[in-house]
């Protein structure tokens, strides 16, 4: 993985940036997100997708890139939630949408319809791995959130003691 090479052009990056933002905002509309944070949830989804996409381009593997993408979504969501003072879910739910393994899930169905059970099983395994790695990445970001909370609390205590 280290010493990897990433090759892409500007056009690719632009399209991925813009489309992941738009897709997240689109999903945010369907789950009825509060108006004031709709833009930021888009940014959150965008960040997660870009991390995933760059890692996937660098051939870091399906599991790692998904986990890191979800981790990035979690981080950005926690920071935004602290800043905007609202639940983390507001950012993490739309933010994870671009990472959902939609294409392999569809291919499972397609293979099953065509009667290629072995390949369908392989694909199903892939969907399972991606889902679990997203959850794991997100779990790691919760760890970060706990640490941040503890740190902030200590900071507040220290300020009180100074006074």
């Amino acid at each position: 993985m280290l010493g990897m090479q990433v090759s892409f052009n500007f056009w690719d990056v632009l399209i991925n940036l813009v489309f992941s933002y738009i897709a997240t905002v689109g999903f945010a509309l369907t789950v009825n997100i509060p108006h004031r944070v709709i833009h930021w949830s888009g940014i959150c989804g965008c960040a997660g997708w870009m991390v995933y996409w760059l890692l996937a381009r660098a051939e870091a593997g399906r599991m790692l890139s998904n986990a890191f993408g979800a981790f990035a979504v979690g981080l950005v969501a926690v920071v935004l939630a602290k800043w905007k003072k609202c639940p983390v879910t507001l950012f993490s739910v739309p933010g994870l949408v671009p990472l959902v393994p939609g294409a392999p899930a569809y291919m499972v169905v397609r293979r099953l319809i065509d009667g290629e059970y072995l390949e369908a099983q392989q694909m199903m395994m892939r969907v399972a791995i991606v889902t679990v790695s997203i959850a794991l990445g997100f779990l790691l970001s919760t760890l970060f959130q706990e640490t941040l909370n503890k740190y902030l609390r200590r900071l507040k205590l220290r300020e009180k003691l100074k006074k």
Partner: protein
Amino acid sequence: MLAGGSEMYRVEDTMRRIAVNAGIKEVNVFAMPTGLFVSLDDGECSTVTELETVKKRAINLELVDQVNEFSREFADKRIDLEELEEKLTEVEEHTPSFPFWLQVIGAGILSATLMVLFLDVYDWVDFPVAGLIGASGYWMDAWLKRHTKVRFLAELIAAMEMGLVAILVSWLVPASNVNNILIGALMTLVPGLAMTNALRDLFMGDWVSGIVRMCEAVMTAIALGGGVGIMIRFLGA
């Protein structure tokens, strides 16, 4: 009250905090996706236990945010208990929401853009088609949910409709690709999120709600796959 698709531990935490701020000594909350128990003990003689079932479940983040906001205000003693209750009932009845057409458009752009992202090929033929079909499927799903009580039926029929339209389009426009269109269009209804949420509940130790949600996600996926499968099988794409 908190049917808006929040995590279980957050529901329990919020309830506990409200109760503690209302001056109750011992609080026990047990929340499940299908209902929640609250037991309050004011330290004297009687314990009050209440049970409430949750029938309607849909992800509604505005609701989550508002309830969170109110409990925060209550904790800061800016509003009292009666005001809190009044506000909660009001939010429950009229949650401020986007107009429905905007949600449908959101579903449309979601499926169009996600198709491009997932496939990593820029096929501009399928782009608008996927958007239109995704939007129509979302609309169909929402419309059917209002008219039927059977779970997963709405998803099944919406998926059938999407499959049908996608195949019709592929007959009319030979350059398009049914698989690509459907990957994008189905993303509006795919329960990937419910699945991730379920895993998160499991990690937080909410076994019941995790398993229930996972079951829900799997059933939804089966309904979607079945719907599309029936159509592809019938019309042969």
